[in-house]
């Protein structure tokens, strides 16, 4: 066929790199309003926020929405950052607040709709078999029954593999409070699993597979 096409030159916009800067210097630049600082912050901290959101929500797509919301809030609050050396913690704390807000919104939405919402575990690109996906879906359905603080504490500690101290710092809580939240979350999840025989049979099957 004859060529009747228009080729448009495409180039991803090349940005000057500021990757060598420390988090503290980046925070100072952001407070000073350097035009590049915000984008550099975005590039540097998106993976952190995204991973936290995926661990907590079990959904990559919802995690992307959370990431956007976190960085919109960061733009509003950047000037209020008092400790540039704690820039990472500052972003994590915003992410925690956004996640708490999202979890509360979901619970309220479920309550208002008078019927339990279907929990969709959306992990694009994950190579799990059908049974494992089913187990995850059911597991996150139980996670959705936890309070927002319990859920976040459990996710950060056990799925994100943070230490107790890191979790406490991220959530701006004392270590003892985080321990209490985790104990409560573990007990509630165990109780709910105890009555979910379908899920337990799937776990047994998978456990057997692992052993074999």
């Amino acid at each position, binding site marked *: 066929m004859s060529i009747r096409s228009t080729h448009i030159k495409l180039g991803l916009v090349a940005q000057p790199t500021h990757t060598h800067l420390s988090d503290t210097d980046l925070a100072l630049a952001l407070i000073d309003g350097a035009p590049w600082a915000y984008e550099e912050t975005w*590039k540097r901290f998106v993976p952190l926020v995204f991973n936290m959101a995926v661990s907590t929500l079990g959904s990559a797509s919802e995690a992307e929405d959370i990431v956007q919301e976190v960085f919109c809030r960061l733009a509003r609050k950047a000037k209020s950052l008092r400790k540039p050396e704690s820039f990472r913690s500052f972003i994590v704390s915003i992410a925690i607040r956004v996640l708490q807000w999202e979890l509360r919104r979901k619970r309220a939405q479920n309550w208002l709709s008078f019927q339990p919402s279907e929990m969709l575990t959306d992990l694009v690109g994950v190579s799990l078999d059908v049974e494992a996906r089913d187990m995850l879906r059911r597991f996150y359905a139980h996670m959705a029954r936890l309070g927002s603080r319990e859920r976040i504490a459990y996710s950060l500690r056990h799925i994100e593999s943070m230490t107790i101290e890191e979790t406490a710092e991220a959530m701006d809580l004392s270590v003892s409070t985080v321990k209490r939240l985790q104990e409560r979350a573990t007990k509630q999840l165990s109780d709910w699993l105890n009555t979910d025989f379908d899920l337990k049979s799937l776990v047994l099957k998978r456990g057997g597979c692992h052993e074999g």
Partner: protein
Amino acid sequence: MRDRVESVSDSASLAILTALAREAREQVSPPPPAALDAQWSEVTTRITRQRFRRGLFFRFSLMGIAASAAGAVWMLLGLSRPSDPAAETAALSYHVEGGTVVEGGYLRESGPEEIKLRFMEGTEVVLTPGTRARLRTVDGSGARIAIENGTTFFNVTHRPAAKWQVDVGPFLVTVKGTIFTVSWDAVSEHFDLKLDRGEVSVAGPISTGEIAVKAGQRLVVDLPKKETVITEEDDGGGLGAGGVPSAGSLGPSEAPAVERPESSTSRPPGRAASLGRPRRAGDGQALSAQGWAEAVAAGQWDRILTEADRAGLRHTLAHASSDDLLALADAARYRRRTGLARSALLAERHRFPGSPSARDAAFLLGRLAESRQGEIGEAVKWYDAYLAGAPAGTYASEALGRKMMATKQLHGSSAANSLARDYLRRFPAGPYAGAAHALLTHP
């Protein structure tokens, strides 16, 4: 079994599930750079909007209070008049066929069939099987739909205040009233938009900013190769219109059928001039006053049809060059003269057998046949003809995909299974890969 199940301690179950969640999380990687760029642009837009709103708030707060008070008095007095109806319209109602909307707005298939979203003002959205998409928002002016992977057809009803947005991977397609099909392959980062009617703008990680796509055009973006191509090869423009010859006259080996000109004039060509493109040896006579291929690219379809009519269609089909025949076919399809388009494509195959253009004509003939009721079988023959002549040609992926869908429609899913397997083997990231997976998953 129950005893055995109970024998697993709850803490052990929880540990296994937590480990599974951790394993899944570790497999999820943050969005690719292209998607991050698109999200970044969305975030900056939101921030700008927020700042603008805050600025407005402080600047006009007093004025707003005064206006609110005046409005309240106005309403109390019953003197208010309806303002912009679109602004006051409630969110569009819609219903879903072949699936349900679940948590997060995801559209989940209830079976192997495609999902159809029908909105009250007439807009229709069809997700091919295997497509992953979600309904982000619906309001009075339209909706915002995100396609994460797969192919979706849109027929958006034109309204003055309509606003429809489609997130396609890292791209944002903004439409008012139009018909188009768009697909996104998240693995190969391949974007493909074919516009049948209207006009859309596409924004995304492309340095030229927004791209306006017009009727009959196709926009393909290959992000890994950093390549953007707009072609005029869309086949939708000529679908389903008049001037259709009888079904029995179709066939891959058939000699060209000549559509009668709408006027009875059959004069010899007024002027023969050079074509805009270099002519190949063996090409026929150039009938166009200027290059018809250039005229097609410039959207001057009526000019081509007028010149062809003036020269006499029978004469044109018998003597035009290969390039002019293809240009004539394009112009005819865009102007819904399907019969003439088909005749031009048949002439191309008859007069220039074995040429690349003749092979492409077979694929286009297949699409034309598929668009007419009762001719899907003929379409399959044309696709076979194309695939036999150009197994690795430009349209090979589409020809095999269309053949698979047509076979499913004609003979059922089981008959199409082998084609689906063949498709996935040859084009694992092709535009019909989702449909092929769905076929094999739901036989």
